């Protein structure tokens, strides 16, 4: 790969890592506060997985940019301001209730599985290898969400109402997930990454079935979020100031 393609892929992987890290940070907020003990365990585990994935994507980006594989991921996580992050707005939204949390995860995980299916056959071997490993973990994430959705959607009146409210709130943000990732176009052309827009039909089919099984309806009228990933929410700033506080107060320290 030439250096231009390297830079594109590093940009692409950083955006993927940003999605994973911010979602992990949000999910970790449940640790010790989940509605049942089994979900304290499950959510900590989901967050551990996503954190691990973020680190993997950042490490691959480090290699492509000839940066230190050990230190560069922490640099990306701890020393970038909100304007430099490229996550989708969906993952930055505050934790919300359990309905919101599960539905957001499910929307994200289903897309991740579809993207990983494409990345497993990436022309860049290190990426294909990492994707194959992550793919297996993500299948469990989707299974976890799929078990919950009908339980809450068809449980009680209250749980149904909460799920429907979460769906209405989250739905506009899903549009942004199908915009091209930073650096994507040349990667698609070179057979290194799948086209994100091409994943939408598969995502919609899976989500439509899951929503029907949970007796939920996607809103018909809504204003889709189609702003580029370079435009961040205020929520991300709050999240980063907490996450980066200690590392930035002691920039020379090793932890």
């Amino acid at each position, binding site marked *: 790969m030439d250096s231009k393609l390297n830079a594109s892929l590093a940009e692409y992987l950083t955006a993927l890592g940003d999605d994973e890290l911010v979602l992990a940070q949000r999910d970790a907020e449940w640790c010790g506060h989940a*509605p049942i003990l089994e979900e304290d365990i499950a959510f900590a585990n989901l967050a551990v997985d996503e954190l691990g994935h973020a680190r993997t994507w950042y490490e691959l980006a480090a290699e492509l940019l000839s940066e230190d594989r050990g230190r560069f991921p922490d640099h990306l996580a701890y020393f970038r301001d909100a304007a430099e992050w490229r996550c989708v707005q969906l993952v930055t939204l505050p934790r919300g209730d359990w309905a919101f949390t599960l539905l957001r995860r499910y929307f994200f995980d289903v897309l991740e599985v579809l993207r990983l299916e494409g990345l497993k056959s990436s022309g860049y071997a290190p990426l294909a290898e990492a994707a194959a490993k992550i793919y297996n973990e993500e299948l469990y994430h989707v299974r976890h969400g799929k078990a919950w959705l009908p339980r809450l959607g068809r449980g009680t009146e209250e749980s149904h109402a909460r799920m429907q409210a979460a769906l209405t709130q989250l739905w506009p943000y899903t549009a942004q997930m199908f915009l091209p990732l930073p650096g994507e176009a040349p990667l698609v052309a070179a057979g290194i990454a799948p086209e994100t827009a091409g994943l939408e039909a598969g995502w919609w089919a899976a989500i439509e079935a899951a929503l029907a099984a949970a007796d939920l309806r996607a809103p018909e009228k809504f204003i889709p979020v189609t702003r580029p990933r370079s435009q961040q929410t205020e929520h991300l700033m709050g999240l980063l100031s907490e996450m980066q506080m200690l590392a930035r107060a002691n920039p020379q*320290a090793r932890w």
Partner: protein
Amino acid sequence: MYGASVDEVKQDGAEDPQKLAEFEARIARGEKIEPGDWMPADYRKQLIRMISQHAHSEIVGMLPEGAWITRAPSLKRKLILLAKVQDEAGHGQYLYHAAETLGISREEMVDMLLTGAAKYSNIFNYPTLNWADIGTIGWLVDGAAIMNQTMLARCSYGPYSRAMVRICMEENFHKKQGQEQVILLSQGTPEQRKMMQDAITRWWWPTLMMFGPHDTDSPNSPLLVRWGIKTRSNDELRQDFVNQMAPDLMALGLTLPDPDLKYNEASGNWEFGEIDWDEFWRVVKGDGPLNADRMAARRKAHEDGQWVREALAAYAEKQQALN
């Protein structure tokens, strides 16, 4: 992680003397008591109290460390801490199951925690004020818990003993990770060394209190010893802990907040000053730095999760009606 409890054993019911004698003979032979076996009512009661307190401690213990997951200063530390807190939730789950073998449900136990009828380890009523607290909890607090739990791994009740074997393995891992952090911070930048010393100064005495009151103030311990639940006394375990930890911490250049701490060549023990027992009992009785906060956090999680648990029950019922 969990330390010794405050023992409140009262033998109230009169047991069949022959059955009691057989039971005590089994324990004397080193046999394990299993869920279906005959046991004195007080043995059952004491075990439920101890195991559920232990489970509650794991659950409440997620809070002080959990607060630092979002602030952990590197991805590696964030991963380690998340995995550790996940382990604690797993220990809680495992212990609730062990207690359930004695005829009490998890719901009843959680209810006792939330109404204040059941206790949890005092140590979690202290705040985590800087990042070095995380390493300190791993090395000192988990280290103290391991001493107590290694003893309990040999206890006479099979399910508790087996739970402890498994939990101790994971706790030893946490302890090593904590030790690694304390070593790193105590040799780090001036700010890191300062936060490390601050953490040790705050956690040293509460950690020693984890072993419970003096043997002389723990009049019921002999019964727990006779029934093979406890096999070593609070003071013995506490002395072992100080002997192990004090030289290691001082070797790192850390100062322990005890002017009376000194090595006694004749006994081979590190002698230490008197624990502030007024503080100990104050925290036991609910007036610790964070007792109210910890319980409020648990109650909030429980109340916020009520609709979720109701939905699960309703869904299960509907599914059953369909089948």
